[in-house]
């Protein structure tokens, strides 16, 4: 995973609450194992009913062609656990999500991919929302994970909270599986112990000649 420390770039507002992963990255009609994640990004919201791009939609406006920061409302990323809903953000160049709240699975998927998820209390959220709306893509904002600040036009720096552990993981770009494999001996010990105390959990063997009762 790539390390994240600071980014300066355009912040785009999309302030609806309860934005779900079907909105962020719908399952495309034409399926591919390697889809075009840029095209997928908010596919429906960006298009009119005849499937042409809506030039007035915020993501289609020229000043937001290359955003770095997405500013969102409450419960962003609810719904399916699909990780494509984070990959599509990154394909657009978005590396920071600032929201009033973020759905559990989505927040986890952000951390897995080095996208910084920031949750702000209402007063700070409303401050940054107003400033990002006022800037309207004309000036950049900076998000610094080292100092835990958001800065930009229209007001004072905003401090944000993030757990020390999540912060370190992003700053160092730690390989998640590598981090866990440091505990390989503990995993093996656990398995040995479980074989003693609850052996059925360590053994998924089908009894011969059995069919599921329905």
């Amino acid at each position, binding site marked *: 995973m790539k390390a994240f420390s600071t980014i300066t770039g355009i912040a785009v507002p999309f302030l609806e609450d309860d934005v779900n992963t*079907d909105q962020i990255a719908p399952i495309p009609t034409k399926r591919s194992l390697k889809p075009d994640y840029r095209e997928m990004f908010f596919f429906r919201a960006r298009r009119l009913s005849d499937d042409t791009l809506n030039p007035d939609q915020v993501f289609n406006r020229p000043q937001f062609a290359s955003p770095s920061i997405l500013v969102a409302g409450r419960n962003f990323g609810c719904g399916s656990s699909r990780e494509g809903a984070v990959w599509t953000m990154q394909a657009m160049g978005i590396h920071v999500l600032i929201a009033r709240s973020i*759905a559990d699975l989505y927040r986890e998927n952000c951390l897995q991919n080095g996208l910084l998820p920031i949750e702000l209390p209402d007063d700070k959220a409303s401050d940054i929302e107003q400033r990002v709306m006022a800037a309207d893509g004309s000036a950049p904002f900076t998000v610094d994970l080292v100092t835990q600040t958001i800065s930009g036009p229209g007001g004072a720096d905003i401090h944000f909270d993030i757990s020390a552990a999540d912060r370190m993981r992003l700053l160092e770009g730690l390989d998640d*599986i590598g981090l*866990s494999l440091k505990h390989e001996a503990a995993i093996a010990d656990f398995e040995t112990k479980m074989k003693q105390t609850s052996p059925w959990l360590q053994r998924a063997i089908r009894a011969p000649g*059995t069919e599921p009762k329905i």
Partner: protein
Amino acid sequence: MNTSQKPRTMFDRIWDAHYVATRIDDRDLVYIDRHVLHDLHAPHAFEKLAAAMRAVRRPDLTFSMQDHTVATKPGRDENTNPDGAHFQRAMREGSQRNGIRIFDLGDPEQGISHVVAPELGLVLPGSMHGVPDSHACTVGGLGAIGLGCGTSELEHILATQTIALKRPKTMRIWLDGQLRPGVGAKDVSLKIIAALGTAVGRGYAIEFAGPVAQALSVEARLTLCNMTIEMGARSGFIAPDEKVFAYLEGRPYMPRGADWEMARAQWLGLASDENAVFDKEHRVDCGDLAPQITWGTDQSQTISVTEQLPALPQDADARLKMERAFAYMGLEPDTPVQGVKVDRVFIGSCTNARLSDLRIAASMVKGKRVHEGVTAMVVPGSTSVKRAAEQEGLDRIFKEAGFFWGESGCSMCAGGNGDRGRPQERIVSTTNRNFEGRQGKGVRTHLAGPELAAACALAGHIADPRDYLERV
């Protein structure tokens, strides 16, 4: 099992029993007892794992299902849905390469992972059950902790047989009352979301308890727990009891003999201690519950089928959101929901496509005809459910009434297999998400239980299932 003095919740008990280590980033490594994969997300993880030259740690505890991209047309093969073929091939190859048992197309036990795993006894009370799908929570109905996850976490489980998590807080939702005929677990779940919202469970694991949870059948508990993610929580569960043990005993992957007796004894000790403290508690009264139906574009926009659609609120933000939902759904505020014309009815998905769901729907449509102009579909939750239903003659009842009777898969729940509606088509669906575009561009989805869906198929409009229930 409880060696400490402090009273514990069931969630804490299971978490503690699966704790392996704490990583330097302060996350707990929690052991995954059973890992069930599906064709939509596993192919990417197999590819990433191979690129990193990592092996699957416990292929013997891992199982593969083909469900999201498979066609439902009778006589299907992997090319029936051409867009799904490469997912299914990658799934098959990745599973075989890594020594994972796959329930492939054509396997007599293929089906939706959350339906098949309980049937086969791949879900054990007190176990941690990982699936790269948000509806992993379904298995909580058997007293297991389901953990839905993304592709990176899926790869992590394959490599380590653990998941790295912050321990969630605990919540108990106490369900009071006694359900009336025509009202089921789906109605309870929608009522909870209408009362508490789609984000109430964010950061929590939810235990459902109280007389309603206890009275639910095992299959109905799977339905209720399936909807936990729609409350914002990753896991939801009900303490296992004799009903659960009776359901599980003798299933193919269950322990047997002395192991079964020992397992059962442990499972009896799983329930939350009487004086256990939850981080949050809610109560929902289900005594007067009528059949529920969603009218909008998230599951909190739910009403009783007997009610009027809501009036627009004063608050500007709330009003805007509601106006948008009304516009998308083609409905007017403050008008009755009953009588709204329906174009299609879908009975299927990991939420409501087990045998009991099909039985109740079949009992309502037996000897009747689907209303003219309505497309009605039944897609069984698994090939085993399909076979059992056919043995009882349910397929004939549905087909004679004018329903499509399909092969098992996720189908119209997410439309990942090409089963989708047309713009502005109004669908009453027993699935779990009524988001804009979920079942196809512009499709207007109303979520409900199988009773209400069956009633709509007959009536041609949104109807109260109690008017169609067999009089006993």
